[in-house]
């Protein structure tokens, strides 16, 4: 279409939005990092023993988590993509859940499942004696949960990678006389290698930036990672805090950038985080092994997903910490507390719903023109815009939060009011962080649309806004709906960004769960978490119902 199509203001609008949401905070972050290093005072944080320990812990936990993600994610991906097991959709849907459940809820659920105070274990009579240590409060525990949380990323990467190779290759190898195992080793594995590397890289950088899991598991055991160290520094606000957190954020950002480059290189620009491509049909029949493999997969899911969630439900039903769950002790009191009595949770609920809806709808308003523009216009400007939209999403939330603090701590020009400390700075950070999430379904709808549909409308005499309204919007409406739900889903559960940006009265659901657990009210935290998980599953099910109207690849768990 070579740019003859759209009006000039469209490019200006999209560029302006990208500048405000992406370029400005990044410039501030880079600038503060440089100044911190230059001044010398903030740079000294690099030499502190605590920083070294945190860096080491971060790398060890992220690497351990990556290995677990690779093993579990690859197992599921290969079996689902290549074999004839039954219930693939249900399996994929369940396997994607850990990615959609907020990490602090995952951590909480696992804590409630294991350790001496677990209501589930107590009920079953399996609980270790009181006073024995909670095994998850360790670096190994953090790594395990990071592995569970990010295994879906590896799963998606490998599935997308396998989908790009037609199954003819596998069939040709079979006809050449290779046994299934030989085919897997000689054909499938080498072809899946880039996807494995990319999936590992994305699991690693997600582990580096994760805040929820080390915050719940590490802080009680005094194990700091870089994100929790930033959080701690920020909580004990001092004169050199800004410089120090900017320097620490730069470390995280550079490790992440290294991982991203590796991933980009392995994938050569293919994206899989939100796009699961059409999977290849079953290439291997398992025969009698099938039932064994199915048992293994569902067993794994039961262990890493169902059991922790059951534990979470169990601990939300006991009246107080440490009480075993029996028919006599079961009560819904915790739900009553969080839903009707506690002002903190009510405010958090209200804030999160507001933030998530405002982010979802606000982003749609930006993503529709941006998606149209980027789909219609190829070339250097479009590539640059796409990368700038992608960066805040790829950056760890904690780094993005720091960037927004640096960008918006000072009063805004012209109006002279600072949005720092208000709910608006959280909204601004959400808009920045989830722009890519919102854009993806809309843009793939525009890309998959036959351009002649719009061209005919033009020839019929319809100007830009007219054909937007009459032709384009009705056609991308399902994708726009998916975009709104996806952003709402992710924003409503968000913890990392809001953990740094909240202040009294602007706490989010994520922050509320974290604070309740921190203050020992584990039954209230569990009740709130159960509600969150229920909403997550509900929204994912809504998307599943919408699935047949959506462009291919929008829903990550569908083949």
């Amino acid at each position, binding site marked *: 279409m070579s740019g003859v199509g759209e009006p000039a203001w469209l490019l200006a609008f999209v560029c302006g939005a990208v500048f405000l949401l992406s370029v400005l905070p990044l410039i501030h972050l880079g600038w503060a990092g440089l100044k911190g290093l230059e001044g010398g005072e903030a740079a000294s944080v690099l030499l502190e023993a605590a920083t070294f320990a945190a860096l080491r812990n971060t790398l060890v936990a992220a690497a351990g988590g990556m290995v677990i993600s690779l093993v579990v994610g690859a197992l599921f991906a290969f079996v689902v993509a290549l074999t004839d097991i039954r219930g693939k959709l249900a399996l994929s849907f369940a396997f994607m859940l850990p990615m959609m459940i907020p990490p602090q809820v995952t951590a909480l659920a696992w804590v409630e499942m294991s350790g001496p105070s677990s209501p589930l274990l107590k009920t079953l009579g399996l609980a270790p004696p009181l006073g024995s240590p909670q095994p998850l409060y360790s670096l190994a525990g953090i790594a395990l949960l990071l592995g569970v949380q990010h295994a879906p990323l590896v799963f998606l990467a490998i599935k997308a990678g396998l989908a790009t190779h037609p199954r003819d290759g596998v069939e040709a190898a079979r006809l050449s006389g290779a046994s299934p195992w030989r085919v897997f080793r000689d054909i499938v594995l080498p072809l899946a290698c880039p996807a494995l590397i990319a999936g590992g890289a994305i699991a690693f950088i997600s582990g580096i930036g994760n805040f929820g899991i080390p915050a719940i598991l590490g802080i009680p055991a005094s194990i700091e990672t870089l994100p929790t160290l930033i959080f701690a520094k920020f909580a004990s606000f001092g004169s050199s805090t800004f410089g120090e957190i900017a320097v620490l954020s730069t470390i995280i950002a550079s490790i992440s950038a290294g991982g991203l480059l590796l991933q980009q290189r392995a994938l050569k620009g293919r994206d899989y985080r939100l796009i699961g491509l059409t999977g290849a049909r079953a290439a291997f029949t398992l025969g009698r092994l099938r039932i064994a493999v199915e048992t293994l997969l569902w067993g794994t899911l039961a262990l890493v997903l169902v059991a922790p969630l059951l534990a979470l439900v169990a601990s939300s039903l006991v009246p107080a910490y440490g009480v075993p769950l029996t028919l006599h002790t079961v009560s819904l009191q915790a739900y009553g507390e969080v839903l009707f009595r506690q002002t903190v949770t009510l405010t958090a609920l209200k804030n999160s719903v507001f933030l998530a809806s405002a982010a979802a709808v606000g982003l749609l308003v930006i993503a529709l023109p941006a998606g149209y523009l980027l789909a219609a216009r190829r070339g250097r400007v479009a590539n640059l815009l796409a990368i700038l939209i992608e960066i805040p999403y790829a950056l760890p939330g904690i780094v993005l939060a720091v960037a927004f603090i640096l960008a918006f701590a000072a009063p805004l020009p012209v109006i002279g009011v600072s949005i720092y400390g208000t709910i608006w700075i959280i909204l601004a950070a959400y808009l920045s962080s989830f722009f890519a999430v919102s854009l993806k379904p809309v843009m793939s709808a525009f890309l998959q649309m036959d351009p002649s549909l719009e061209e*005919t*409308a033009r020839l019929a005499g319809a100007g830009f806004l007219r054909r937007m309204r009459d*032709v384009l919007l009705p056609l991308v409406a399902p994708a726009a709906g998916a975009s709104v739900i996806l952003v709402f889903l992710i924003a409503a559960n968000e913890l990392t960004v809001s953990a740094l940006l909240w202040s009294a009265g602007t706490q989010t659901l994520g922050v509320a769960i974290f604070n309740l657990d921190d203050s020992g009210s584990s039954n209230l935290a569990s009740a709130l978490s159960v509600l969150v998980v229920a909403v997550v599953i509900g929204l994912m099910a809504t998307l599943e119902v919408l699935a047949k109207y959506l462009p291919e690849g929008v829903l990550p768990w569908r083949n």
Partner: protein
Amino acid sequence: MAQLILNHLTKDFGAKGPGEGGPAVSDVSLTLRKQGFLALLGPSGCGKTTVLRMIAGFEQPTDGSIEFGECRLSDAVRVLPPEKRNMAMVFQSYALWPHMTVAENVGYPLKVRRISGEAWRSRVAEALSLVRLTAYADRRPSALSGGQRQRVALARCLVQQPDIVLLDEPLANLDQHLRKAMEETFRAFHERSGATMIYVTHDQAEAMALATDVAVMSEGKLLQVAPPADIYARPEGRVVGSLIGRGAIVRLRLPEKAGRQLDWPLLQAALAGRRSGHGHAGEGPLSDVLIRPEQVHPDSGGMPMRVLSSVFEGERSALTLALPDGQSLKAYSNKAFCHGTEVPFVISGGWRL
């Protein structure tokens, strides 16, 4: 109705990889006769669709201009947007809006022109009745067959009363039987609307059957424009000769003074001369000569040729013959021949390209 003039039209999509060079459309000049039906014919990738999209205003020329009567539509500096051109286009993919009914699809150009109510209804009904789809007015396009969809697209063009109708391989997705019926519909549409029509296709039979003029393009260049019968009888150059109709191109030594229309004595002499390798009749430089299959007849007084293949095609057999010097010819025959036999043939005429 004004005339459409393409004036040294050029489109270069910019730097491409080595070996891909050259503009997509290069220096195309063409004046369309009023209310004409021009078929733009060429192999895929020859630039014909790019020409069409420049006429519609979807692409901007890098050089040259497009004029419609007094009005300049496009040049390298300015482009009148497609929505202001009063043109209509029929796409290979039909381009029906799936969220509108058939009637809404057809009536959309009127809606944009703020025509509503009774006027809208009657004009939509008229357009639908012309393509015999009145009964389908309230259906969605997805409930229609390919041929019906293309007729809806045509009705949508009709309702707008466009100055120019552009058709981009509109029959490519239809089966053989439907194509014939749709060709008929297009012809009727052309007579009725009085619009200038430009029809892009790579199917020369379709182009011949429909158009008042055929323009042949190859590698971005316009090679020849002429009425179908002319371009069939007198193609210019090897490319046009091989694109239009069936036929064989043979290389013969012809005397300089020979015209372009060649007869049997001349051809016989040239063929005989070539056989001897030197001397009398086949003097002069080598020329490309197009020989149509219908010009090659079995005749006991002819020159013996070897039958390389004989394929039964229903109404007749198509033969491939080898000339004495090894070049091959195509011929039609009512009777089948055995592979490898030597049969005398006469070539009643040829055309020097």
